[in-house]
């Protein structure tokens, strides 16, 4: 079974919009992969005119919010940067211990979603645009903000369509449901590490590689 990867369209967001955007995307993805008995909960975005669906699982909500907070914390330390939030679904398999230092269980990632975000601070970013028009900076800022918000909403909607398309196109790689939990498959949300922006990210990738086996080994 191959690991299906989906690179979602990049979204240009403001720090205040990160939470809403990530909640919308993450919950939508997980809802598609929650094959257990689900009572969907319709949630309206706070900043956008978009209604997304949650599984209704409190633990899921807690984990997602926790990861979002970590990401926001990282963004605060690394403003105006492109970053990714990765949602991965994996299987846990017992790995035969070939040597004593190996982990007994391994994660087999069968699907990864990369949420690409470009966090932009409009205060620092907008000044350069408004420097030439200081007559009505407030009005221009409002117009730009509203237009930017509308474009972001449209882009977010496209991202959701993208998820739906991907989910519908790729179904064979989904492993069998072995439990009756709401979230049928274990998942992992990875955010950029705060220790080292670039190296930390790579550390997570390496860690994942060590945990997972070769894709050819998976059947």
């Amino acid at each position, binding site marked *: 079974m191959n690991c299906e990867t989906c690179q979602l369209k990049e979204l240009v967001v403001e720090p205040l919009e990160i939470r809403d955007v990530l909640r919308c995307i993450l919950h*939508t993805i997980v809802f*598609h992969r929650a094959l257990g008995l689900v009572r969907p909960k319709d949630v309206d975005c706070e900043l956008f005119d978009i209604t997304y669906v949650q599984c209704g699982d409190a633990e899921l909500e807690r984990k997602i919010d926790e990861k979002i907070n970590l990401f926001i914390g990282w963004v605060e330390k690394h403003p105006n940067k492109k970053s990714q939030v990765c949602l991965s679904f994996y299987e846990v398999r017992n790995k035969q211990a070939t040597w004593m230092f190996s982990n007994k269980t391994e994660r087999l990632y069968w699907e990864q979603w990369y949420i690409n975000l470009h966090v932009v601070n409009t205060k620092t970013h907008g000044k350069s645009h408004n420097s030439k028009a200081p007559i009505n900076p407030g009005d221009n800022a409002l117009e730009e903000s509203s237009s930017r918000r509308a474009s972001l909403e449209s882009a977010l909607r496209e991202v959701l369509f993208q998820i739906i398309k991907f989910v519908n196109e790729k*179904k064979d790689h989904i492993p069998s449901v072995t439990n009756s939990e709401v979230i049928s498959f274990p998942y992992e949300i990875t955010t950029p590490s705060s220790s080292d922006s670039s190296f930390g990210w790579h550390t997570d990738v390496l860690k994942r590689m060590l945990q997972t086996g070769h894709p050819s080994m998976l059947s």
Partner: protein
Amino acid sequence: MASSPCNSYSEPPIIEQVITEFFAKSLHIILESRSPYASSRNHSVDHFISSPSSSSSSSSSRPRDKWFNLALRDCPAALENFDLWRKSILEPLVIDVLLVHRSSASNATRLSPGGCLLRNFSGKDRFPMSPRMEELETKSDKTIERWVIQYESRKESCFGREVYSGSRKSTAASSHSSEIPTLYKKTYKRTIVMLRSLYVFVKLLPAYKIFQELNSSGRICPLSLSHRITPFVEPFTRAEDAEMNQFSFVPIDTPCGRLSLTVSYLPALEDKSSEPSTPLSTQFIMDYVGGPTTDPLKMFQSVRSAGPLPHFVSITRQHSWSNDHGFMRSGSPSPSPTYSDSQAMHCDPNVRFPPHHLHDQSPSASSVLHNASVAHKKNTSCEDYLSSSPFSPMSSPSAPTPNAFLRSESAPVNIPSPRRGRNSGLLNQALPPSSPKPQRPGCSPRTDTLRAQITTPSASQTCSPEGKLRTKKEPLRSGDFETVISLAKLQALSFGKDEVGSLPGLKCSSPHIPFSTSSSRLSLLDEFDDSEFACPFADDEDITESCNRVKLSEGKDQINENSESRGLVPVQRSPDAAVGALVQMLKTAPPLRQDLSKSVRSSQVFRGDFWNPRLQHNECMEAEVERSESPASNSGITASGLFKPRTTADALEELRIYKEMKEWLLKKGGSKSLGDSHKDKPACGGGGLEEKS
């Protein structure tokens, strides 16, 4: 397992059931998000309380909810339609979502004998529409979405052929049967995912926004959402087709067929989701409270008919308003309590006087009025207003009194002054600018002196020497000072003669009033301090008694009249003038003279103790003192005025006496040098003391 031909239901029963339930679940998902009234009525949030473990709630879920592991809210529309449709799964399930206006029927769903649902808003109805429906048919209905759920069986199913071939039936069937669970699981899993996508997708389309608005508003709107379910697909017109966007879910392959789900939708709805309720048109409210067309104006009109408002009020209030006076033409009949109270407080001293006396001004007061014409007018108008009813016509022509009144009504009334009492207003206004010069020529020095103290010639007031002397003893309170000043002014005006103590025009000099230096009451104060006006500072009984005596005296009305007339004048004085006059009065306060007289006596006695020859002079001094006191005792009015001259004269006299004594001593100094020297020491000391004094 018996096989069935592929052209018929070749699917295994379980697969067929999955397909059937797939249709139902799809219909349920679509109508749940497109049928506002039906879903809102049956929407129960409690049923979907998120729980940490869904397994606990699975037992409580309904059997239909378990299909595809998706528990949905109740949707009667979907359930009813599905029950009628469930008979055939080979026919597609077409769900048109319509945007309907109010004039049209809310529900266009009709049933056909075949169990298929008919369209109600199309010319291709299989069944003739009732006239009622024809009437309801409007062009405003528009298909904004079309969902097509279809199961396509394979005519030639590879699986079916292999399974149901003659020679391989047994082996195919066995393999089929063994693979059914796998196929079922695959199919079932895929349908689960597809329905998940459908559930998310229906909420991303524009029609969901209308659905939300209709659900949240909860009121009858001209726009509404309707649906129609048909077993066939009516093609769109070219225009409609051009407007529509299509989205197709990835079909799910079944052993004998394929499940497909497609949607055609309008990407943008043309303001059809706007609130149908007519917004409030902006309009100017002309008759707002407090405006020119409301009651406050009418109020002023009535007041105008009743009479103009106090002039001084308008003057005082004019600065608080920048508007013109013209628009204020009416006013409320009843003034505000604060306003009336302020006026009452301001003109309180004059309110007590009968209205008919307001305009009666004595000749003596005419000059006073001439000096303070503006204030007088103000006060007059105020008095007129207060004396008469608020609606009574005013005699004096007034200017923009309605405006003033309105101003006071529409704006916070600024109370001009706190309550000071009967005499306060009187005194304050009666006090003119301080002027040491007497203003009435021809008066006696004493009267002139008195007038010097009294900076403003006020109306004559009754005063008695004893009242003056009274004030010397006790410390004058502020109210007393003001009263004293006013009384002094009034007295000065009444002084047409050099006599002190007799006040023409006022016959309040009651013999009952004892004249004594120990008295600390000012007769002027007594004369004025009657019950008709109050002195907030003079709470002494003596004042009251003197007031009563004044009342008992002759010409009570005259007194009142004079008091009124005089009272008008004091009202005109300013506080600064009152202060100046007070200072003057303090300087000439009788107690000082009395103390000095005592000190003089003591000094004289002192000298007497050490210098016998001076006893004669002491007697002389005492005699002088007595003489000086006698005129004061006789005329308490002029006591303060004569204090200075007598003091100076007395001092000069003493000096002369000492000089004589010194000469006499020097003459005798040669014979009795030693004794004289001893005697001179006290004299020198007394002289030193004398010099210092």
